[in-house]
């Protein structure tokens, strides 16, 4: 639209394209930044309610411009640079961390027509871009030249890269059903929401992505109520604010991502016809997901680092891998149906109950329902079997631990199956 207007105004085609793209980029990129100002206020209000207090209420109506005031305050604060800091690395780190989050906005499908750019590798692009954040954190740890910052950075990076495995593996299921990596393609492929056809993947993705955010209950390296801070200990003023900003922006983007992957993105009644409705639907879904994530953050106690890593490597990753094979198998039994027949019925000349239902609910939805039902049943079966196996495994382990405790044999450090204190947490995680 802008491009055509500019070309009509007599501008060179190349420049018109460039300005068109630039405008799109600025809108998409600042979306996150603007959201943060609002989102922080919303989250603080929620947190206040959860903890039986009011939350911010001084600046503006209901404290709604508190975040703006905070940002202005931070602007006037001194940016303390540690004497021994590796300066270029020290200042590049927050930039890289924020950039890695903002870049996700480029491929978020807000509605059938509103999307930054619909890359053919959409979801892979998201995963690739967010994996850069780990490097930014590593740089922050190194650049500060502080042993606690470096240690904290190591821990965060170990957490981030560990949980990347189940995140990506569970995102593989929607890709498999929709048969595309493009974000719009994933939304278009969801005639029935993927949370129905692949609920286990949705749960896995939600847990793993919460850990990737580094928020409670997985925020052990910041742990503001217990430790001083993690990798960002030497940062102050605006430089620190950037890490904060990245965290908030990321948590909302992950909620959007979850909605796109599992809750049908912008899908909803009438979204195809009125693109604006799509944006509203996506926001409602994302806010709901975001609320659940904040809810978890405010009510679940923090995990220990060994529990964190055990949960990932001994539970989520094996489960996700077997689940991928399992879903692949089920998809061979119940392949994604051919939708042309359903559309023919809906558009067909004859009247009747079938054609009426097809028209009312949408032909694609009705035609996909049986397959989604089969997938749902298979998922339930998977959960039942997995739970039975887990119960059995943890029962055996518990018995072994009890036996060993009876004999008070604590000597077996290491070795296959030997009792180590870590086994306690393992049983806890398995339960």
């Amino acid at each position, binding site marked *: 639209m802008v491009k055509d207007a500019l070309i009509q105004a007599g501008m060179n085609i190349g420049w018109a394209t460039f300005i068109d793209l630039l405008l799109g980029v600025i809108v998409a990129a600042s979306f996150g930044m603007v959201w943060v100002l609002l989102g922080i206020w919303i989250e603080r209000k929620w947190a206040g309610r959860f903890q039986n207090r009011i939350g911010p209420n001084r600046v503006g109506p209901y404290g709604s411009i508190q975040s703006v005031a905070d940002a202005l305050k931070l602007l006037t604060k001194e940016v303390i640079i540690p004497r021994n800091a590796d300066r270029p690395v020290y200042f590049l780190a927050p930039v890289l961390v924020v950039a890695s989050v903002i870049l996700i906005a480029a491929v978020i499908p807000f509605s059938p027509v509103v999307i930054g750019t619909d890359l053919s590798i959409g979801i892979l692009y998201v*995963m690739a871009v967010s994996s850069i954040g780990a*490097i930014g954190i590593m740089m922050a740890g190194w650049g500060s030249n502080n042993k606690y910052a470096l240690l904290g950075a190591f821990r965060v990076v170990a957490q981030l890269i560990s949980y990347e495995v189940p995140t990506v593996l569970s995102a593989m299921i929607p890709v498999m059903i929709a048969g595309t990596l493009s974000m719009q393609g994933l939304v278009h492929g969801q005639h029935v929401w993927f949370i129905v056809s692949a609920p286990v993947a949705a749960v896995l993705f939600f847990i793993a992505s919460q850990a990737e955010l580094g928020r409670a209950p997985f925020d052990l390296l910041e742990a503001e109520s217990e430790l001083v801070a993690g990798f960002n200990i030497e940062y102050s003023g605006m430089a620190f604010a950037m890490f904060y900003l990245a965290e908030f922006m990321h948590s909302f983007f992950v909620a959007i991502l979850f909605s796109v992957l599992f809750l049908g993105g912008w899908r909803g009644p009438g979204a195809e016809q009125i693109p604006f409705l799509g944006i509203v639907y996506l926001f409602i879904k994302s806010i709901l997901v975001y609320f659940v994530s904040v809810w978890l953050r405010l009510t679940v106690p923090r995990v220990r680092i060994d529990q964190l890593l055990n949960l990932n490597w001994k539970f989520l990753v094996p489960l996700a891998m077997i689940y991928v094979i399992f879903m692949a198998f089920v998809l061979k039994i119940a392949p994604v149906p051919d939708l042309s027949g359903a559309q023919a019925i809906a558009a067909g000349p004859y009247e009747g109950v079938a054609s009426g239902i097809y028209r009312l609910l949408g032909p694609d939805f009705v035609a996909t329902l049986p397959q989604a039902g089969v997938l749902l049943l298979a998922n339930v079966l998977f959960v039942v079997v997995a739970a039975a196996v887990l119960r059995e495994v943890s029962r055996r382990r518990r018995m072994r631990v009890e036996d060993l405790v009876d004999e008070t044999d604590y000597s077996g450090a290491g070795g296959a199956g030997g009792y180590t204190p870590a086994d306690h947490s393992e049983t806890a995680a398995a339960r």
Partner: protein
Amino acid sequence: MELTIEVVVFAVFAIITLAGALGVVLARNLFRAALLLLVSLFGVAGLFVLLAAPFLAAVQVLLYMGGIAILIIFGVMLTRGMVQARQVMNSQWDLAAVIALVTFVILMIVIVQVAQGEGAPLPSLPRGDVAADSIAQLGAALVDPAQYVLPFEVASVLLAGALIGAVYIAREDEAE
């Protein structure tokens, strides 16, 4: 050859790649060298995009920058006594420079000869477009018994072996 936007973008990524690579080789501080390796790898990802292989570009970022580079940085930290070396190059660095230069010159001669050769000169335009569903084609080719399924399974054996072996080597010996 005129100076189109594509050529400019190519030049930018080529310079990023090569400058980063030079930095890796020359940097005193090993951590900085690892960061410059990231820069170089990013440049290569850009070249992949220009070559219509966005999947490889994304994998380059996800796997090389987010995986191998992190692994290397962890390795650097574990041997941190060596991060800041007094002497970066060994005694035969001058010889090494000559060999590298000779390698480059020979490769250049080959490229120039082939580019101007009569048999099959290097094309300046791609022969045809990449299919729109190239990623799906790639996936199909990897598990196609007529194409790459054998290397594919061998790759999994290699990875499995490398994982067990590397963990075994890296772990502290329990006997000591």
